[in-house]
């Protein structure tokens, strides 16, 4: 199993989630994060005090999938999240050694 970590633009979340459902993803964890990267943040001015905000709002997806699904999932995310503008995000893949479903005690791929 692999843990796929993807960071995308927030308004793409719904679209990506739907696309992933169709390729068989049945669960994920979604976190609102602040992204730092090539896409630059905005500048805020409060009564003359300027703040350059280095971070932009992003959404991070964490999805554990069986090895066989990895390619399909990454390419689905890549396709759906893409807007061709800077800041579209990244996808990382990390190895997962074990998985467990709390409710049933099922293990590994059965737990996904």
């Amino acid at each position, binding site marked *: 199993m692999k843990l796929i970590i993807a960071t995308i633009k927030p308004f793409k979340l719904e679209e990506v989630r739907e696309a992933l459902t169709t390729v068989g993803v049945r669960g994920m964890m979604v976190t609102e994060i602040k992204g730092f990267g090539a896409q630059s943040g905005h500048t*805020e001015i409060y009564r003359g005090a300027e*703040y350059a*905000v280095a971070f932009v709002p992003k959404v991070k997806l964490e999805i554990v999938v069986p090895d066989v699904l990895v390619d399909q999932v990454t390419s689905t995310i890549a396709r759906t999240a893409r807007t061709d503008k800077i800041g579209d995000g990244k996808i990382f893949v990390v190895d997962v050694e074990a998985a467990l479903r709390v409710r049933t005690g099922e293990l590994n791929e059965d737990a996904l």
Partner: protein
Amino acid sequence: MTNLKTFSGLAALGAALAAAPAWAQEAADASATAIAPYTYEQIVEKGDVAWMTMATVLVLLMIVPGLALFYGGLVRTKNMLSVLTQVFAITAVVSILWVTYGYSMAFTDGGAWNSFVGGFSKAFLRGVDATTVVATFTNGIYLPEFTFVAFQMTFACITPALIVGAFAERIKFSSLLVFIILWVTFIYFPMAHMVWWWGGPDFLAEQQTALLIAQAAGDTAAADTAAANLAANGLLWNWGALDFAGGTVVHINAGVAGLVGCLMLGRRVGYGRENFAPHSLTMTMIGAALLWVGWFGFNAGSNLEANSITSLAVINTFVAAAAAGVAWMFAEWFLKGHPSLLGLVSGVVAGLVAVTPAAGFAGPMGSIVLGIVASLVCFFFVAYLKAALRLDDSLDVFGIHGIGGIVGALATGILVNPALGGAGIPDYLSVPGTLQVGAYDFGFMITAQLKAVLFTLAFSGIGSFILFKLVDMLMGLRVREDVEREGLDLAEHGEPAYNM
């Protein structure tokens, strides 16, 4: 009976009479034969009581939740409760001081010290009851003294509460409370007395008539007494300074104290490096809106009656704020690229500050001009000069209340001119028992206003410095650095503002 506010034409005249018996003598000769002692009734009207009661409630609304939210929204989440608690606690503490000795210090005769401060004859509201009354600005029309005590109480509460914005996010709560108790006692109550203590229209008419009669009769002793009575007003009132609703007493006073405080406490940890962005402009908007709403009680309530001048003050307060908001918004749009909400509401508050001393003296068009000018001056100070000076007046108490108050106080001397649509300088003495519009003299008025501004800057500036120093030596003004980092809410008050 006593009353508030400066009617300077009259003040000047009164002072002149006291100082120049010879001149007065001549005036007296002309009409001496016809003069009878001045008598009057004291009428209390329920419409006035109804309005003044609401005005009192509106000023409380300005403080809590108004000012508390306006300031609270501008600080970081971790200091939200500290600001709310400071404003709330100051209101509670000062209101108790007010009924115990503050009202007496501000609104009784101070004997030998009367130019500067009142006495303790009404401490604990002794002698104030359901039958005592105070004068308004109309001959024969009076207000229950309780009504006046309550209305003025809210002014005493809001003024020190304004100060906390200058050193928000770093002051020790205990030290703040001690400082505020000292500050209202030694700065605010005397200032209120100096600007607003006078005898009221009937008292003046009575003394003026008595003076003329005494002079006609050649009774020097009686004339001297009457002349002394005519001059038994607060210092700034006698200078002829105009301040309809508290430009000097409230705004310049608080603004300067804030400036001194932020200089003495020093800049916040992380100043210039960390992001001090407001944690909730929504709260700031609510606060600004309630300040605007409540300010009608503040400004139009200062008329003490429910009549057409009340409504004039309402209109002036409305359009000065509106013009100032729009001016700041466009200035920011043009110079900084965006019309921000914070800019808009900052302008509104600057306009409200500036129109405060002018509310019943200027006309609506004058008020619009005043709002625009004050807003642009404050904008320039806050958006450019403050950064250049590396001044960490956290929430711009000096930049808005101090600067806006100064612009307003000076402009009042100009806009009162009937030729500019103003209401003119009140004169109760020429025809005792009636309110006349006195002749407008630019040089006199602007000098009187300037003297009042400079006096307030000096008195409040030096006085506040001494009090801050004292408290600092006694118990320290500032929290420890790690407390400041963690935020005052948890460290000082044991709670976070939000658990969402």
